[in-house]
């Protein structure tokens, strides 16, 4: 269980959120939803130790995140990367082994085999020699998921993995996430829109400058929470539509 207690993060004077408490369950896919600027990315960056926190603790089964650093995989947003970089698909996925190799050790036959296998899992074996700029958004996202596979982490955190990708890639990635869940890993997904929320996520964290509610999606995904995080109007539209379509 990933437990966050009393967490406060502020970039300037005003905190993004203060005294935040939330837990993420092992063996679950947990979605984090909320409007732009709600602090979703800030929360995962705090979990990953990428930003300074003012107060609070993040613990995984009573260990600090520093202790389990090598057990965490992060799939960041694609837009933050230089797609002209001289690296091909295979070499990028192989960077997933760097963390456990440590300094002064290069990837060997074992690491290359793991890389091949991960590429096969996301269906990109035929693309391994491609420079990464010559991929579609969905293929590139699958490349980063393949890197996370290679990391063999216990906690996998994905930031907006489904933005601007094709349906085939989305399905492939979702299948990997479910596989990870069945292996008892902890999966955290920052999600941008409310479509498919109940289909994709076992648990849900609803955010807007702090956590509004968290728990099993069936209990948390309700008009009151969504209304509070986004707007009452959106909530009304969403939930009437939902009952209408009967999904």
């Amino acid at each position, binding site marked *: 269980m990933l437990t966050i207690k009393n967490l406060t993060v502020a970039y300037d004077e005003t905190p993004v959120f203060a005294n935040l408490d939330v837990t993420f369950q092992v063996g679950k896919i947990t979605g984090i939803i909320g409007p732009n600027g709600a602090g979703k990315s800030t929360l995962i960056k705090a979990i990953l130790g990428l930003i300074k926190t003012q107060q609070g603790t993040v613990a995984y089964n009573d260990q600090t995140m520093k202790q389990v650093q*090598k057990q965490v995989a992060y799939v960041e947003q694609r837009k933050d990367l230089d797609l002209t970089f001289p690296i091909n698909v295979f070499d990028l996925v192989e960077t997933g082994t760097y963390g456990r190799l440590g300094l002064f050790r290069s990837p060997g036959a074992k690491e290359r085999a793991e890389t091949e296998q991960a590429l096969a899992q996301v269906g990109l074996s035929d693309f391994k020699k491609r420079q990464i700029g010559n991929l579609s958004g969905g293929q590139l996202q699958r490349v980063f998921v393949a890197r996370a596979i290679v990391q063999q982490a216990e906690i996998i955190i994905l930031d907006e993995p489904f933005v601007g990708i094709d349906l085939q890639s989305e399905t492939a990635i979702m299948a990997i996430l479910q596989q990870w869940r069945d292996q008892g890993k902890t999966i955290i997904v920052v999600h941008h829109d409310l479509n498919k929320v109940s289909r994709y996520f076992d648990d849900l964290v609803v955010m807007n400058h702090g956590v509004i509610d968290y728990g099993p999606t069936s209990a948390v995904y309700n008009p009151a929470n969504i209304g509070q995080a986004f707007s009452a109007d959106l909530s009304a539209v969403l939930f009437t539509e939902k009952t209408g379509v009967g999904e």
Partner: protein
Amino acid sequence: MNSLIDFINALGKYDFLQSALITAIMVGVMSGVIGSFIILRGMSLMGDAISHAVLPGVAVAYMFGFNILIGASLFGILAALLIGFVASHSKIKTDTSIGVVFSAFYALGFILISMAESSTNLHHILFGNILAVSDSDIMTTAVVLGIVILFVSFFYKELLITSFDATYAQTYGLKVQILHYALMLVLTLVTVSALQTVGIILVVAMLITPAATAFLWTDKLTTMLFLAGGIGVLSSITGLYFSYTFNWASGPAIVLVAAGLFLISFLLSPKQAFLRHRVKKTAPAPQAAAVETLATNEGGDR
């Protein structure tokens, strides 16, 4: 052609020319390799800044008679730390911080050099004087080349991942900052070596132009490193030849050759394909031919 034979004959005859050639080759390799990481990290301006910021270190080394590498490293690292400090402790952006710090260092260097005028020649520091390389200069350059090669081979995967995706490197616990400053230190060492061949003003051209040229030809980092080193060497040797034959200043001659190689690559390389795109745009008539060139290019562009 005769001038080429003259050049080769002179190489056999004159020690100073041999020394110049050896230094030029070593500097070509190291600046191409380190320059590749500089441009991939989007740090061309930083490369320029650090290369200028070593000037006070050079002056101080002359004044007190210790090794120029030590003086230069000291000021190079100091400049890198200051640039980082100003950028992270104020709302000022990094490029502005670079501008403030490096111009101040450069100015300080000028004043110190004019105070130490006696044995040094400012002109040589600014523009290089490869034909006056001493044996100890060669030794120093060889040591720096060794450091560059060791640094890049031992930390290849760390340099790769921090250049491409520093955030990811941080998540698995790599000390990204330390590697950054280590690279800056190596950069100052390369700068000092390149001082002799092209001078302080043009060092940045040796770092960036061969690396940028190599970048246009390949999609693989290892290939890029070797290619950039090779282009650096080719520029240095050819520039030296022009310098000897036409009595041009060695630094500008080397840099112009490098720029010429870049221009050719800009026009012809498959990745850039400036000419091909031009031709396609202006003359769409022979479509079959255009399609064929594209096909032979195995999807080099999207």
